[in-house]
């Protein structure tokens, strides 16, 4: 609507002599040029010359080719696209926060330290775990921090161990993290119900036997540093034998890492600290609604059990209580503790994505214990409603009880040569963002739908109606689906050429 054509690259619209930024008058003597001749800036090849008008228009027009959570349901499974309250944005922009300098002495940033401490307290209570670091910038960074904690613990015990177990349903960040932390990854097979298999599993196609948890624990024993388990797992199902799994791992001295990307299904309902988790991360950009920003920034705090406390990254935010007179309310001061000899060190230059943490605390205070639980339950109800409405029309490859998301497969449509990608692209034509597709890998042609608690019945019904219409269309007019999207600004993209002959930046023609 009201979009004339594609918005060209700003480099192609640069005109010499335009400027979008005026400089203040210089009120001190001009700079002396102290640079060696060969380090003088020679110029720029791309930096465009534009006025403010054109920059504003460029980014306004470009924005219109995006879809955001205020456009409607954004059912990306595992990504938890909730309502992003504007209050959180406003609070994060308070100058008291934004102007504060990370190198300022503790006494001058007491508000920040109290903010961090308070958020830590909320996360501890929510996870049931006594240790927290807010430093990791995202889920993957949290995973890495967590696995490094595991490693530091084992090293302190005398041996770093060699292996991390990860279910085949796990997110790609899990094995990548384990590798970055110097571990070898051994895959745990899933059962048909999507949960981790204790027993060995024989591949129905090639007959290959994949060792189950029991075998692996027995065979690898003290080689196992830990396991990284997503719970609820990426099929939206609670690992109902979690306690047994953790007991088994603990029995060989291994630790249990929980990928908490799906923690929004558990907040107020179950606490990882209560079922054997030693260390986990939370994605505040999922569970606590901090905005995704078109890719980030997020925040991936790590929570852990008592015995991992000494290894937490520095600095650790501490509260000291100032003793006051009898009957008076105690006063608190806050400080950063840097001197922690067993710490793994720093995992972020400063203290993590502070502005995101501010938003997360604002979310917590707005919801409170009652609202947090309510949000969890409603997210689960919404997912199950979609499941109830679409079951039948789409195949449920795994039929275990869904929590906050439901994963369908394209097997029913595949009969008409219609596949997950076609369904996803057709949704775009109807004005919906598609779900997560082809993940988890254990579900063929996965369509992973997570509505979150932010959708009401009206929006859920509209989405389901569309999905059902597409299922019907798959039978009656599969070609329409192969051609989709046709109403979007672009049709399907040539991703192969993009990867084979990559053009990764603009260059002067």
């Amino acid at each position, binding site marked *: 609507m009201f979009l004339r054509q594609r918005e060209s690259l700003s480099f192609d619209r640069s005109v010499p002599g335009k400027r979008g930024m005026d400089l203040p008058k210089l009120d001190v003597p001009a700079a002396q040029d102290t640079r*060696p001749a060969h380090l003088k*800036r*020679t110029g720029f090849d*791309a*930096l465009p010359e534009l006025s403010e008008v054109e920059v504003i228009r460029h980014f306004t027009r470009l*924005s219109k*080719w995006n*879809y*955001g959570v*205020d*456009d409607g349901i954004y059912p990306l499974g595992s990504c938890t696209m909730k309502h992003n309250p504007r209050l959180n944005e406003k609070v994060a922009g308070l*100058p*008291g*926060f*934004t*102007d*504060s*300098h990370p190198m300022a*002495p503790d006494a001058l940033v007491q*508000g920040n330290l109290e903010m961090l401490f308070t958020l830590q307290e909320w996360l501890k209570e929510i996870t049931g775990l006594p240790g927290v670091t807010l430093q990791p910038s995202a889920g*993957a960074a949290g995973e890495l921090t967590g696995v*490094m904690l595991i490693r530091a613990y084992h090293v302190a015990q005398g041996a770093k161990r060699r292996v991390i177990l990860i279910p085949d349903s796990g*997110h*790609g960040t899990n*094995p990548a993290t384990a*590798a970055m*932390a110097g571990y070898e990854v051994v895959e745990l097979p899933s059962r048909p119900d999507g949960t981790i298999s204790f027993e060995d599993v024989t591949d129905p196609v090639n007959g290959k036997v994949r060792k189950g948890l029991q075998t692996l624990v027995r065979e690898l024993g003290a080689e196992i540093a830990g396991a990284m388990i997503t719970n*609820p797992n990426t099929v939206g199902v609670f690992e109902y034998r979690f306690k047994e799994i953790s007991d088994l791992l603990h029995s060989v001295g291994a630790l249990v890492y929980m990928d908490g990307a799906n923690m929004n299904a558990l907040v107020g*309902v*179950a606490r990882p600290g209560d079922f054997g988790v030693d260390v986990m991360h939370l994605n505040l*950009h999922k569970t606590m609604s901090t*905005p*995704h*920003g078109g*890719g980030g*920034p997020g925040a991936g705090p790590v929570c852990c059990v008592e015995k991992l406390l000494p290894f937490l990254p520095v600095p650790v935010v501490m509260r000291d209580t100032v003793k006051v007179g009898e009957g008076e309310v105690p006063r608190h001061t806050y400080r950063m503790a840097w001197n922690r000899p067993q710490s793994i*060190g720093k*995992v*972020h*230059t*400063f203290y*993590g994505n502070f*502005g995101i943490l*501010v938003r997360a605390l*604002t979310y917590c205070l707005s919801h*409170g214990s*009652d*609202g947090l639980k*309510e949000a969890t339950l*409603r997210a689960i*109800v919404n997912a*199950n*409603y979609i499941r109830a409405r679409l079951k039948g029309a789409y195949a449920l490859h795994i039929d275990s009880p869904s929590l906050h998301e439901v994963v369908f497969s394209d097997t029913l449509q595949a009969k008409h040569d219609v596949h997950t990608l076609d369904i996803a692209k057709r949704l*775009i034509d109807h004005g919906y*963002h598609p779900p997560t597709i082809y993940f988890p890998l254990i579900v063929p042609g996965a369509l992973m739908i997570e509505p979150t608690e932010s959708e009401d019945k009206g929006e859920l019904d509209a989405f389901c109606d569309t999905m059902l219409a597409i299922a019907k269309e798959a039978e009656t007019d599969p070609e329409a689906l192969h051609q989709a999207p046709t109403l979007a600004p672009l*049709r*399907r993209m040539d991703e192969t050429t993009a990867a084979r002959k990559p053009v*990764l*930046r*603009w260059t002067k023609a």
Partner: protein
Amino acid sequence: MRYLPSSPAEDRALLDAIGVARAEDLLTGIPEPLRLKGGLDLPLQGSEQEVTWQMLDLANKNTRFCAQFLGAGAYDHFVPSAIDAMVCRQEWFTAYTPYQPEISQGTLQHIFEYQTLICDLTGLEVTNASLYDGGTACVETALMAVRVAKKRNIVLVSEGLHPLYRQVLKTNFAPHDDLQLVEVALKDGVTDLADLQAKLNGDVAAVMVGYPNFLGAVEDLTALAGPVHAAGALLVSVTQEALAFGWLEAPGKAGADMACGEAMSFGNKPNFGGPYLGFLAVKDAHKREIPGRVVGQTKDLDGRTGYVLTLTAREQHIRRDKATSNICSNQGLVALRANIYLQLAGPEGLKGLAEQNVAKAQYLRQRLLELPDMEPMFEAPFFNEFVLRYKGDMAALQEACLAESLLPGLDLGRFYPEYQGCILWCATELHTRRMIESLVEILARVPATV
């Protein structure tokens, strides 16, 4: 609760359609003993008014300053109003990673433009959609250098690199028994060439130096590139104050093989250290080893130009434990801020601003040196930071500044025992002559050395 849209009647209808009596009945997948008994021991929900006040109360507990003379990796620059105004469009700030290109061209084209600009600033050919921050960008770059250099297992790190970046590097190298981080000493505020020469050998994959370094000094990349390249290693330029690219030659043109660092200076306030913007740029030959998301230009079925996430075969969701990194979410919106900032600034704005920073820092230094207790330390050219030795009482100086709502520079003793008593000062375009003069006046009144 204002954020939870379903009404009681709608809720009922949903539960009926599902076929359960209560939402709790959907928790059957969670074994009863693992469920939380009772509620969370946390306060109840708050109205917008109450929460606003609580958070405002926290924000107000931070001390406010008229001027901060502190940089050290977090720079206070003017942020044009256009940036917040654009970024707050929900189409930008709420969107997810652009997995579905047809419905995400806004984000994709922005990233392509951002990549172009980072390449332009660094004089290199390939970059990604962002990394977390300066410290973690160093980690990704060092690990990438090791992959690229094959079989070489040592990374030399100049002590001029931001001490916290070095700490992050150390943390992340610790798990790799096969890799070694070795520090190279400073001399006269810049990397000691002799020490570097001594430590260079056939096992060195890369050498990382600050540009400008933590002490504000401009390292001579070209001079360093000679011995580094002669030893077959890669020269990595690390920039913690990206505005310096408006004044200093692009590292890729000055001899560096890779450039990484922190670009928070483009459109962000200090924000207590985050969210910031890690970047990394490399040569075309190394592109398939780069970590993180990368956007490429391509065509749609009708031949129209568009943008997609590409080179995904490097990434964790495809390659899992063989990926170039585990990074998934990055700092997308901060990259958008940088993109808008740079497009507003343009070449003239960026150069002009950089020169103003140099002018302010030179003036600050000159005026501070008029004080009897201040002594120069290094003679290397500097951008907007420099070190002076203070012969007076550091605590008294700190106190005098705070009393007048000025935040002084960094006491270097915290990170460099050898520079005990030295202060790292910073000035940017935000420092007026008057602010600088008040600082000098205040310092002139600090009680003399005991």
